[in-house]
């Protein structure tokens, strides 16, 4: 078998002209730079500190193919079940925007919401600074591959002071096994603007494929952005996601990430509190079973004074599944009066499940408030006994307590349709007679 580098070089040669913006020299240049970087670094290996618990050898071996650029036969009816009421919906099937399944309603003045491919076609200058060759190194081979191959994604721009009240639902659907999908989202929220996005990954069928997505977000001065994510990939899928957030003065950013699907999942969230008084909340819930492996790496850089970060991740691990949580918080020398809190709580429901959790606090400023903690445990036997002493079956008591543990995270979602959807998904895991208890 040829090397991964050769394989992807051939793939690129085969499909480069079908990728959006292929006629733009700067973009072509940027894609080639990504490819060259991948050729050099390849996929991450266990020898890299950041990847030591998560092997992606199976991705390398799989030789997933780029999807054909032509429209596929997905009908709106096939994906309606994933829709969320009261949203602007953009649907991407196998990495390409599908207007037929999407529904973008009236937008306030100052909001640009369109597929990346469309924007590259009509106003490419908006993207030149973001999608061109990058000067700093790619965080991993996946980022480099994404740069070379991204086929579409969302472009959202909010002019200063504009509030987009309707949440934006980005639905990424994979319909076939064997594909490598690289998607890219670009969000620019100018000063004082506000928006909420839902990034939602699903599959038709249970095949193996690679979904490699990167989201790049700038939250301007006093702007407010919420990024909600629901990962429901097929249980054989590989899901790799990056979220990079650049926060300006007084801005607020909220990320709530729910990982329920995927055979192998790796999420990198990097937030830079790059000006004074910026604040971020990073919440997450991963629920794994069988042989699933879900890895979250988060990094928050307190680069300037008076930043606040709140991070809370919970995990529920069953079967022979494995999860990794690595939460890094760096308080830089200039970031006086930073306030950081991080917690990771894990519930191990089986002896064969395994969690590697590592909070990493690096503090270079002296006037700061930082706390962190990680716990790994089983259900509290006293709670189980209390419920049983009231007549509740042991199995039901355990299911109920597990639900309650997870529901703490869904309860924090303000967007009602998504909260309801997640609660339904959690309830789906409960025995019938317990469902009416919650």
């Amino acid at each position, binding site marked *: 078998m040829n090397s991964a580098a050769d394989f992807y070089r051939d793939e690129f040669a085969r499909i480069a002209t079908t990728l959006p913006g292929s006629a733009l020299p700067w973009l072509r240049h940027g894609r080639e730079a990504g490819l060259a970087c991948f050729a050099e670094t390849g996929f991450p290996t266990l020898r890299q500190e950041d990847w030591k618990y998560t092997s992606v050898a199976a991705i390398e071996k799989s030789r997933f193919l780029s999807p054909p650029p032509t429209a596929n036969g997905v009908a709106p009816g096939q994906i309606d079940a994933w829709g969320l009421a009261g949203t602007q919906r953009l649907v991407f099937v196998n990495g390409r925007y599908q207007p037929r399944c999407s529904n973008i309603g009236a937008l306030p003045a100052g909001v640009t919401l369109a597929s990346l491919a469309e924007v590259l076609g009509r106003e490419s200058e908006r993207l030149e600074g973001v999608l061109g060759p990058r000067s700093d190194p790619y965080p991993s081979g996946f980022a480099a591959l994404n740069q070379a191959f991204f086929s579409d994604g969302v472009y959202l721009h909010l002019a200063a002071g504009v509030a987009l009240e309707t949440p934006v639902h980005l639905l990424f659907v994979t319909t076939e096994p064997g594909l490598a999908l690289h998607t890219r989202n670009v969000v620019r929220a100018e000063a004082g603007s506000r928006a909420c996005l839902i990034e939602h990954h699903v599959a038709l069928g249970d095949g193996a494929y690679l979904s490699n997505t990167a989201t790049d977000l700038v939250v301007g001065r006093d702007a407010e952005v919420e990024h909600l994510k629901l990962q429901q990939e097929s249980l054989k899928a590989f899901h790799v996601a990056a979220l990079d957030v650049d926060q300006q003065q007084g801005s607020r950013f909220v990320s709530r990430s729910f990982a329920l699907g995927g055979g192998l999942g790796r999420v990198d969230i990097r937030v830079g509190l790059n000006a004074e008084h910026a604040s971020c909340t990073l919440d997450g819930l991963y629920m794994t079973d069988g042989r699933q492996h879900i890895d979250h790496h988060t990094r928050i850089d307190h680069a300037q004074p008076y930043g606040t970060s709140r991070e809370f991740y919970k995990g529920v691990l069953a079967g022979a599944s494995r999860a990794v949580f690595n939460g890094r918080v760096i308080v830089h020398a200039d970031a006086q009066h930073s306030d950081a809190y991080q917690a990771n709580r894990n519930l191990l429901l089986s002896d064969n499940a395994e969690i590697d959790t590592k909070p990493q606090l690096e503090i270079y400023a002296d006037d700061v408030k930082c706390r962190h903690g990680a716990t790994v445990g089983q259900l509290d*036997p006293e709670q189980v*006994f209390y419920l049983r*002493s009231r007549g509740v*079956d042991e199995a039901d008591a355990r299911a109920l307590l597990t*639900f*309650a543990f997870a529901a703490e995270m869904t309860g924090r979602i303000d967007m009602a349709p998504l909260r309801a959807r997640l609660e339904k998904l959690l309830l789906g895991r409960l025995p019938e007679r317990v469902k009416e208890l*919650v």
Partner: protein
Amino acid sequence: MLDIRNLHVSINDKPILRGIDLTVRAGEVHAIMGPNGSGKSTLAHVLAGHEGYTVTAGEVRYLGRNLLELSPELRAREGIFLAFQYPVEIPGVANIYLLKAAVNALRQHRGEPELDAVDFLALVKDKLKLMGMDTDLLYRSVNEGFSGGEKKRNEILQMAVLEPRLALLDETDSGLDIDALKVVAGGVNAMRSPERAMVLVTHYQRLLNYIVPDQVHVLAQGRIALSGGRELALELENRGYGWVEAAAGPAGGGA
């Protein structure tokens, strides 16, 4: 109703109960008193089926059956109710839903149909009033953030709704203000009946002014050191436990 014979119980190989004998008949109210650490809660937990305790000898019969064979949930469905000394907080599970689950588990066990939502709510609201509790406590998570007194009332609320045959009340009076004590005692008295038995664990004679027991037992060093009528509680109040413990013999005495 309840027959305890020579019950020995250990926790992590440490003997706690060293030969308890106790008989409780239907319609009776028994008070168990005794110094801290003497094993009162241990006894209550073992009767309710807590699995953290090991019964090393003896037997317990309840309504003619071997109680120790039954799972905690089966005991509950057979009519045993433990009001916890330290009620457990269960974040994320609403009080009312636990009540509903408990009621329906009982009814199902007895082959009765589930209560419909309206009847259930009427029943609960009725008992809630009896306990002087706010409706909003129903919709909060079980015991989470409840004050000490609210937790105790909540236990009695559950008891009032479930109407057990054998109620074990472990220091339900501790932490209650005087008014709350009267309310709780009123709730308990309202449930006294010829078919029902109650075992009250308490440190205070005060409770027994409101709920008059048929018998008072003193648990010391893992045994029932002394039993008597309600006047025994008064005597303990005046004299403390020292004389009972002295009469019961040295702590390490063994069986």
